[in-house]
């Protein structure tokens, strides 16, 4: 339903440590990873093969293509370092990070990485290095799909890492739940037990120590060593425990200061009897085989004005992105049929009616997203769309109560909420 794009495959240590492939996960890395189709009839493709990506960009701007190539090579070279220092160890502070970068001599050794990035937006980063609007739009779009909003100050610091894995997008054959099943199987084979379909209601605390959990059914599970919560700070500290246990200060902080994303995702899931045939293939025929297609965001300004509208609680004229999984996963639909996911950036609560308004707006907005797709792929007539369902930001919050306000990243992605500041400085090292 949600996490369709797995971009850390073979980079994230747990993929190997938990032997997910031995447990049945099959990954496909589509050769045409992503594309943008633009209103002027052109299309830009990003390939698994970075040489082809660079060639495709050169059609738009040879200078930008060369810059992109240097950025990719550099970022890709740093990916291990970045993952090792920034992601797969308890977080540093921004200060420590800045110091480390300075000691490393980043300004001399790197064209793109710089301590300055922590004060810049992705837009600023792109403006400094690139010239072509459409290339910038695609790169900004790519950041946004990874939850890195292009107009947020400080996010430029994480952007090179995103570029370093821009061609590492993988599809989990059979759907992402296959990955969950693999993790489960590993757990069970090592003696663990998953209690499915059970709502945790309380964390049991004795003498200041978490000693177990109580389920909504009343059933209690005692902890041998510890309780680890994967859900939101709000649930964990406000709902699962009383303020007398958590302390007034932390309760107040969690209630008031945990930051959430200011936009969410609106999704349309489709079953189809045809693959999209874009009007852009005259320019680049590979666009018909792109896994994920940005439909018409043609400049960073486009995105900026969309964010403004969305933050004000309004719906934008949809410019969704379309992912056709069946292009690369024949098990996703019967032969001759296809599945697709349209995803549109959207507010969680609408200015007019709050999040509840999605109940009446969802279907209508879904229609509009489909119409937007059709503008670029006119062959997707009603006859070819066998069925479709929407999954609104409100649905996200209903189905996954840990995604407060439809926050699919479970916490704002901003410099102030990164590293050891996430979700709050006092919780930044994984325990209060």
């Amino acid at each position: 339903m949600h996490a369709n794009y797995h971009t850390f495959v073979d980079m994230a240590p747990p993929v190997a440590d938990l032997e997910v492939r031995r447990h049945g996960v099959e990954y496909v890395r589509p050769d045409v990873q992503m594309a943008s189709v633009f209103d002027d009839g052109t299309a830009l493709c990003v390939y698994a093969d970075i040489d082809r990506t660079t060639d495709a960009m050169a059609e738009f701007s040879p200078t930008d293509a060369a810059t992109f190539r240097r950025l990719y090579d550099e970022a890709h070279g740093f990916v291990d370092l970045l993952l090792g220092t920034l992601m797969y160890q308890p977080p540093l502070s921004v200060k420590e990070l800045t110091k480390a970068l300075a000691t490393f001599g980043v300004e001399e050794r790197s064209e793109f990485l710089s301590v300055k990035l922590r004060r810049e937006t992705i837009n600023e980063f792109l403006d400094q290095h690139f010239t072509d609007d459409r290339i910038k739009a695609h790169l900004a779009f790519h950041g946004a799909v990874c939850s890195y909003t292009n107009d947020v100050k400080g996010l430029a610091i994480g952007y090179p890492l995103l570029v370093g894995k821009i061609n590492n997008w993988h599809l989990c054959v059979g759907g992402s739940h296959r990955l969950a099943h693999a993790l489960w199987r590993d757990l069970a084979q090592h003696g663990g037990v998953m209690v499915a379909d059970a709502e945790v209601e309380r964390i049991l605390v004795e003498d200041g120590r978490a000693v177990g959990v109580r389920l909504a059914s009343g059933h209690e599970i005692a902890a041998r060593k510890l309780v680890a919560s994967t859900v939101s700070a709000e649930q964990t500290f406000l709902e699962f425990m009383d303020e007398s246990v958590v302390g007034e200060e932390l309760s107040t902080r969690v209630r008031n200061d945990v930051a959430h994303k200011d936009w969410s995702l609106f999704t349309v899931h489709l079953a189809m009897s045809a693959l999209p045939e874009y009007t852009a293939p005259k320019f680049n025929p590979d666009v018909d085989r792109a896994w994920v297609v940005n439909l018409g965001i043609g400049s960073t300004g486009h995105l900026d004005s969309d964010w403004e509208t969305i933050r004000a609680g309004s719906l934008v004229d949809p410019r969704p992105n379309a992912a056709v999984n069946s292009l690369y996963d024949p098990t996703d639909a019967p032969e001759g049929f296809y599945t697709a996911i349209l995803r549109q950036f959207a507010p969680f609560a609408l200015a007019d009616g709050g999040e509840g308004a999605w109940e009446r707006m969802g279907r209508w907005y879904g229609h509009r997203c489909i119409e937007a797709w059709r503008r670029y792929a006119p062959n997707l007539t009603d006859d070819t769309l066998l069925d479709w369902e929407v999954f609104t930001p409100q649905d996200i919050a209903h189905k996954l109560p840990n995604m407060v306000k439809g926050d699919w990243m479970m916490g704002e992605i901003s410099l102030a909420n990164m590293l050891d500041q996430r979700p709050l400085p006092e919780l930044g090292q994984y325990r209060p």
Partner: protein
Amino acid sequence: MVIDELFETPELRALMYRVSVEWGLPLDTDGTGTDFLTFLMWTTANWKLVYGGTHSLAKAMTQACYREGVDLIENSLVERVIVEDGRAVGVVARGTEYRANKLVASNADVRQTLLGLVGEEHLSDLWVKRAKAFRYGPSHVLGTPMFCLYEAPDYSSARWDPEINRCFYTAVGYEGPEDMARYIRDAYSGTLPKPAAGVWVNSLWDPAQAPKGRHSATGWYFLPCASELSASEWADVRETFNDRFLDAWQALAPNMTRDNVIAHKLYTPDQMERKVMMREGDFSHGEFVPDQQGVNRPFPEASNYLTEIDGLYLCGPSTFPGGGVHAACGYNAYKKIAADLDLPSPVDNQRSY
């Protein structure tokens, strides 16, 4: 006939007809009376709901398998059973070959297993004939409507007995035993019956099945076999049948208006056939008639779970005792396998079977 002899209240007879047919005991077939008496009566009032939905049971069984070190290969259609020198030695699933250490057990129905996966060339004439003669439906062909509701149904008859609003399983839309019998005979003869159903509102007992303050209901329609209607006719059924059923429902529970329905869907036999390969949408993977029941299931020569191919067993609902969430087919098949291969018996000393 047994029902008519034992019970005189028309309402009770209607209900017994319905339950009887749900459990695969056709009204008009000789010999089903015994099953009614021996099998059906004791399951009455033992109906249970799996918290979280029936897939919780599948998950629990999956976890039990994982813990025993079993590998489940998902998302892979078995295309072929590999037979070498008259022995089943493995399977091919989505292009990959898996070799069997000891045996192959097939949960697919007997026809699919023998004719589809093994192939006639490995079978004797008798077994080919028997497999071809095996029939699906109409005994266990259902449609499942799903309704997302604001309010749970509030029946007019609650004035008579308020418990009706908290009843697990409610038959809706039948005027009496004759009406019920006609309905069932329609479905069995390939005609779309008038909309009526057994319905249940799981969210009354299991809050996990609907958001707070909302409800979810599902039910069963008896419907014709998948092949009785064309694809477009089934599409039409999916479009219209729930709506027509709602009229019947509203007549009995006035709050079941269109406005009370947030969303609804109907899952039809042709879809079941495609999705889980229940041929004809028959959940017992084979018609319930005397010549395919008991020791005749799926056919006499195959009734002890072993096929004529050495090492190939049947363990799905086309074997005795048939469909339903009881695991008896697999359990019995394992007993036979355990005896043949000298494996531990599943019978523990607390239990005699």
